[in-house]
């Protein structure tokens, strides 16, 4: 197994600021927009973006939720391990809201497909956008593309993108791991 650094802490920070600016351009005061981080790893991206928007770009209020998609996945009973759920925390209605789904890595698109199904349990959004920190091109199983992408990566199938966060793993760094 070998690994190389795809993005350093500094590069991740620059990308997050750029993504925050792109969100700001399209959603201005976030009055009709909600951000939803997909559990488990998308919540770190969502939290960082929210922090930047609130503290550095002085947005007054942002509704931020966390969505668990375990019970909506299409690979139930297919893998070796039981799918373990994590916490869903959405304390607002998504009815008629613009929803930005946020995840760390977009790979096959199946997680996003499950997230779109799960989202229906919380109402009918006006529109849904997708933001991913890493977009693994040419590996999609479904016709799903991000509206906002941090970095596009051409990784082959036996390679894995591993995103690490300071609050979880002690440092911000993204590796491309060859298994």
């Amino acid at each position, binding site marked *: 197994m070998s690994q190389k650094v795809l993005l350093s802490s500094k590069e991740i920070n620059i990308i997050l600021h750029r993504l925050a600016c792109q969100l700001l351009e399209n959603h201005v005061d976030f009055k009709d927009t909600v951000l939803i981080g997909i559990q488990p790893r998308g919540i770190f991206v969502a939290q960082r973006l929210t922090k930047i928007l609130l503290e550095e770009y002085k947005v007054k209020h942002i509704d931020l939720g966390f969505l668990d998609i375990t019970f909506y996945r299409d690979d139930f*009973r297919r893998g070796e391990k039981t799918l373990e759920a994590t916490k869903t925390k959405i304390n607002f209605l998504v009815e008629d809201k613009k929803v930005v789904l946020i995840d760390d890595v977009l790979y096959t698109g199946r997680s996003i497909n499950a997230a779109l199904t799960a989202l229906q349990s919380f109402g009918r959004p006006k529109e849904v956008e997708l933001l991913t920190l890493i977009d693994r091109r040419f590996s999609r199983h479904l016709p799903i593309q991000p509206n906002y992408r941090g970095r596009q990566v051409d990784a082959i199938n036996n390679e894995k993108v591993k995103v690490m966060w300071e609050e979880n793993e002690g440092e911000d760094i993204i590796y491309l791991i060859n298994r």
Partner: protein
Amino acid sequence: MSELSVNHLLGIKYLNESDIQLIFETADHFKEVINRSIKKVPSLRDITIANIFFENSTRTKLSFELAEKRLSADVLNFSASQSSVKKGETLIDTVNNILSMKVDMVVMRHPNPGAGIFLSKHVNASIINAGDGAHEHPTQALLDSFSIRERLGDVTGKNVVIVGDILHSRVALSNIFALKLQGANVKVCGPKTLIPKYIDSLGVGVEMNLRKALEWCDVANMLRIQNERLDISYFPTTREYTQQFGVNKKLLDSLDKEIVIMHPGPINRGVEITSDVADSKQSIILNQVENGVAIRMAVIYLLASKIKK
């Protein structure tokens, strides 16, 4: 640990502590799901479950059926009173006929202890015991412990007294196994005639005086007097039972603490507990019913995940 150690839920006796924790954590997530406006998830859309009830039950059957439907499983309901069992068909034949219709899981209630264990050895499906005679009722015990954990934060170290007909109660036996496994202290209380002789071997204390039992406990689990199982007189009259082992508001108020009141239902109001106790803030009887659906969803989900494609 992300997988149950068993392929069937035949009794609490066959589970370990990690299994119970996994079921509780999964039930926490399902509890969040069933409190949404859309209470359904698509996880089990390719699973078919047969509810086979050889004994009458309303709330357990409804709770299982709701849990199955909220997981998007296909559900078959089979009631022995309108079936070929009346014509002399054996249990294995009945279940195998149902399984031939490509059923993946069987939820079974049966009047004979061990019926689920017997069935699990002879048919190729995942079996959930929904009550077998006076043996076990595992999902009831799980939802009882889950409700205690929800109200008191933890089960470990808590003092729980089970009051009533211990001898005929599958709820009592499963509860004793579940509570002991989680490190709770358990006592039973009831007429001496309704306390089984083997109770000491389960590591459970016996208290004949209800007041003393209530003074000791954090939780009182009041069992129903099962008139249908009392073929001989175990106590003189219901009135006398109520006087000695019934809980009323006056008794609770005279204690210098607030204990949690539970009852697996259906309640004989005025016998095991009075209405003002059943409907009081101390009572978590309706929480038990709500938690029953989440616990059963968790058990079904975790067992179904072991049926590989």
